[in-house]
């Protein structure tokens, strides 16, 4: 079953749309659901042109395709438990949060809190991801707990904050404080980043590019061979937080 949602032109394209119902398991049962445009409840069909092709016996046979300007559509794929969502353009905040299974692929850019508190499944962004990619929520000790997040462009600040399980791969650069408060899982950054892994207690972070503003409370333990065959400096920390996380870095600079 393939459900295509094409965003209609809106009178005010800046008003955010909250669309947590855009999930395969809900839409396979029917597309007569509502979403919110600001404080107004709207029918999905009022905002999207909807076409449904084929049938599905289980959620895993469902693909939802989003077209048009979906950069302000939030919470797509929330609590998703199977199937596939393909976003042809950009996607708004909180895409894939709490997702447990299935695949989301965003071909454009993803806004903030991409794959927040992910439990399982695969979430891919071909463009850039905003701040708090694969992060947690305010006040919560544990962020993402499982699954895989892969960003082929750059990620913003606080990527993988509170990461506790699963795998996060950023092929481009990360902003400030990636992996801050990490307590599990693995984070791999192919590009550069600033101040990674402050306060981490556990987990593994690998930076194949250059780290600026290296946190001064990681203990250098030696060198290892990285996944790309090159040498990486190995650290344990964050000592300030009695942490035992592993941090592997190609190049680094302290703010002296």
């Amino acid at each position: 079953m393939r459900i295509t949602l094409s965003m209609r032109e809106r009178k005010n394209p800046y008003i955010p749309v909250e669309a947590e119902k855009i999930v395969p398991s809900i839409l396979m049962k029917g597309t007569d659901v509502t979403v919110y445009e600001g404080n107004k409840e709207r029918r999905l069909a009022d905002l999207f042109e909807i076409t449904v092709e084929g049938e599905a016996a289980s959620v895993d046979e469902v693909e939802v395709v989003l077209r048009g300007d979906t950069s302000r559509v939030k919470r797509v794929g929330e609590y998703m438990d199977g199937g596939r969502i393909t976003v042809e353009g950009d996607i708004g905040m909180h895409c894939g949060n709490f997702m447990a299974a299935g695949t989301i692929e965003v071909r454009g850019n993803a806004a903030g809190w991409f794959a927040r508190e992910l439990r399982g499944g695969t979430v891919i962004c071909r463009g850039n991801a905003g701040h708090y990619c694969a992060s947690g929520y305010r006040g919560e000790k544990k962020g993402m707990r499982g699954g895989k997040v892969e960003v082929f462009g750059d990620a913003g600040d606080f990527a993988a904050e509170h990461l506790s399980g699963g795998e996060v791969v950023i092929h481009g650069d990360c902003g400030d404080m990636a992996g801050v408060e990490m307590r599990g899982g693995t984070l791999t950054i192919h590009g550069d980043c600033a101040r990674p892994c402050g306060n981490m207690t556990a987990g593994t972070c690998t930076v194949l590019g250059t780290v600026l503003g290296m946190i001064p409370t990681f203990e250098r333990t030696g060198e290892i061979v990285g996944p790309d065959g090159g040498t990486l400096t190995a650290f344990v920390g964050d000592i300030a937080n009695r942490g035992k996380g592993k941090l592997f870095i190609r190049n680094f600079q302290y703010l002296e």
Partner: protein
Amino acid sequence: MRFLFNTGRTVAQGIGLDRKSGTEYAGATSRCMMNPVDMMDLDVESGDHLVVRGPAGEVVLSVVPAEGTPRGMVFVPLGPYANHVLGGETHGTGMPDFKTQTVEIEPTEREVPTVTELMEEIGGVAYEQGARP
């Protein structure tokens, strides 16, 4: 020259807070405090005007020497002048780059605008109140 653009409170700015249409407030918030060595590099003297360019636009300020300000940084009291160059990036925290913006600064002959002019420039309409008894 590139500078780190730092904004914050001053007493003079604070005093003007409740009377922002006055010239005191404009004077207090259109100052750009700079290390004297940087001023030499820019070839400006106290009271000269500078144009500051940031992500959202530019503004003209008058320079004030300040020994306590490190080189490479300028301090501008918080207010409409400082904000006139700032963008809306908050890094997902709600807090804009009030202290962490990089700006481009050069001397200028242009005048420091009034607060009203600043607001008109971004779509505001000036209000003139009749004198109060």
